[in-house]
């Protein structure tokens, strides 16, 4: 029996990996190019620095993928990153200290995420509009918390998260393990099920609305913590620092093969997608591209990443 289930497990995992072969290859090629351009990545400090640049993008991509797997989307990722950053920068220097700052950022992310989920799930407004409108509200809150760049993150905490030690990488592994465990719970599975087929999931006993709310809350938590990390990285807070993360989170998830209609895609794909994006930005930087050219390249790559598999599938069918 256990042999059967383990075989089934391997088969399922294998099928999930199959569509990702192209992505794995791309990751491999980009990593090789990166090592060629900047061999320093092979040292502990170099590896740490690279993973630190990748980490916030990986977290927000996970947050976005979580919603997309559930059939939703968030256009409020950027402002939420900013909010996490300014909350961390204003509380950690004060009486509450570092633990207080972490708790405050986490609560803000969870609560605002849950509120958006509440409006989407129970008041039945489309996620795209709710999060677009919320992006103004959350961005406004961030501006009120810290009207201009400032605040302070204790230097020891910055060194711990963004120094020459691979803390960020370990945290990422931890998050992925937690996701794996979460997927074994009924709620975790429900996120996939409700995204794939809401009516079917509902009839099978998944509380679709509650699962949706959970997805938004968790996504908010991850995003706010990404903001906290960004603040630790820069040593201070900035109320608009998160802006590019909205598009990049969607781009990472889409590059990783996560579909828009829910239920399609994997977290490992999303992680690879964010890694590709991060590598790409770094490689373009090394090759001397001006920052604006990255926008142009990014637009083309996103379209290519979605279009090429579509065209290949169509060509195979024909």
């Amino acid at each position, binding site marked *: 029996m256990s042999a059967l289930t383990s075989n089934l497990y391997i088969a399922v995992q294998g099928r999930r990996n199959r569509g990702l072969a192209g992505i794995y290859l791309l990751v491999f090629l980009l990593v090789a190019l990166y090592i060629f351009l900047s061999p320093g990545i092979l040292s502990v400090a170099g590896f740490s620095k690279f993973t630190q640049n990748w980490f916030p993008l990986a977290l927000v991509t996970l947050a976005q993928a979580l919603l997309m797997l559930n059939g939703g989307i968030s256009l409020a990722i950027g402002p939420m990153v900013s909010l996490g950053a300014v909350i961390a920068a204003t509380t950690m220097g004060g009486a509450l200290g570092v633990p207080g700052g972490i708790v405050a950022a986490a609560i803000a992310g969870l609560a605002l995420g849950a509120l958006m989920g509440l409006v989407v799930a129970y008041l039945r407004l489309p996620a795209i509009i709710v999060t*677009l409108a919320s992006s103004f509200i959350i961005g406004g809150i961030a501006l009120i918390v810290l009207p201009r760049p400032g605040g302070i993150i204790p230097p020891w905490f910055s060194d711990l998260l963004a120094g020459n030690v691979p803390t960020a990488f370990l945290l990422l592994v931890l998050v992925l393990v937690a996701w794996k465990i979460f997927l074994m719970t009924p709620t975790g599975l429900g996120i996939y099920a409700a995204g794939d087929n809401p009516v079917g999931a509902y009839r099978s006993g998944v509380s679709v609305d509650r699962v949706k709310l959970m997805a938004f809350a968790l996504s908010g938590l991850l995003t706010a913590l990404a903001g906290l990390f960004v603040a630790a990285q820069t040593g201070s807070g900035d109320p608009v620092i998160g802006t590019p993360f909205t598009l990049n989170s*969607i781009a990472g998830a889409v590059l990783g093969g996560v579909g828009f209609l829910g239920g399609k895609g994997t977290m490992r794909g999303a992680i690879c997608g964010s890694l590709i994006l991060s590598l790409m930005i770094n490689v373009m930087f090394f090759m001397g591209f001006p920052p604006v050219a990255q926008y142009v390249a990014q637009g083309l790559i996103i379209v290519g990443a979605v279009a090429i598999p*579509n065209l290949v599938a169509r060509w195979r069918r024909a």
Partner: protein
Amino acid sequence: MNVLGKLMRNPPLLTLILVVAVLVIASLTLRGFGSYGHLRYIMELAAVIGIVAAGQTLVILMGGIDLSAGAIMTVTAIMLPLLSPAFDPTGLIGIVVILAIATLIGFLNGAGAAWLGVPPIIMTLAMATFLQGLLVIVAGGSAVSVTNAAVIWLGQGRLFGISASVILWAVVSVAVIVLIHRMPIGGRFLALGANPVAAQLSGVSVTRHTLIVFALSGFFAGVAGILILGMNRQGYVGIGEPYVLTSIAAVVLGGTSILGGRGTYAGTIPGAILLVTTTALITVVNASAGWRSIMFGTLILGLLLISGREARSR
């Protein structure tokens, strides 16, 4: 009760009543709000939103979304002064050229969606990113002033005391409503939005109509970009950005389903006016940038809760 029930099922009318109520209350309580000059100013701002939202309405009716409308407006506003030749005192050549470019960008959106199978939301978002980078490379990121006579007239001119932009909006409104409700192609848009498979099996070409609808959206975004340029007399990177949210909000406020297949531009018109009026109310309240942003988001959410909710799926 029966009347109320009927009203709740007619979102365009509901939005219209809401906008009249807000305007009347604001005019009675705030000095100067109801003056002809101020109302005309509100209508001018609403014309810009209304015209972008015309394209957005068509795209959403067909089940898509256009997140690049703001970027197309910015492209128009920045490129138009560069493309208006000095030998043409009327400025019409520049307008024709820039509208062709805007339409072409929209067409490319449609090509990505129809031929490459990229979902509209990704295609248009990627297009917006692409254009943003391209603009900074082309224009260098600095603001440009406009001297094009036709553009300035459209943005600031008047005919019998009515702003040229509002007249243009009225023309666009009639054209779009006729297109949606009185022409076969409008029916096909609605059919594709409601059930693409059924429409396709009935002989409606998805590819062709996707190309047309996105090209139209690009065209209308271009017209709106010309208007905003004429009003501001200056184009800069980011000028069109706020119009992505406002155009989508105007469509949904007007009772058009974001899922496609159901709705009308007749609802988008009061939706656009409602948005501008509430934004004007926020400006009256003396608040910091953060609070203004919060009020704007909350008001849009609140308005959407009244008239933009989807039907229960189960």
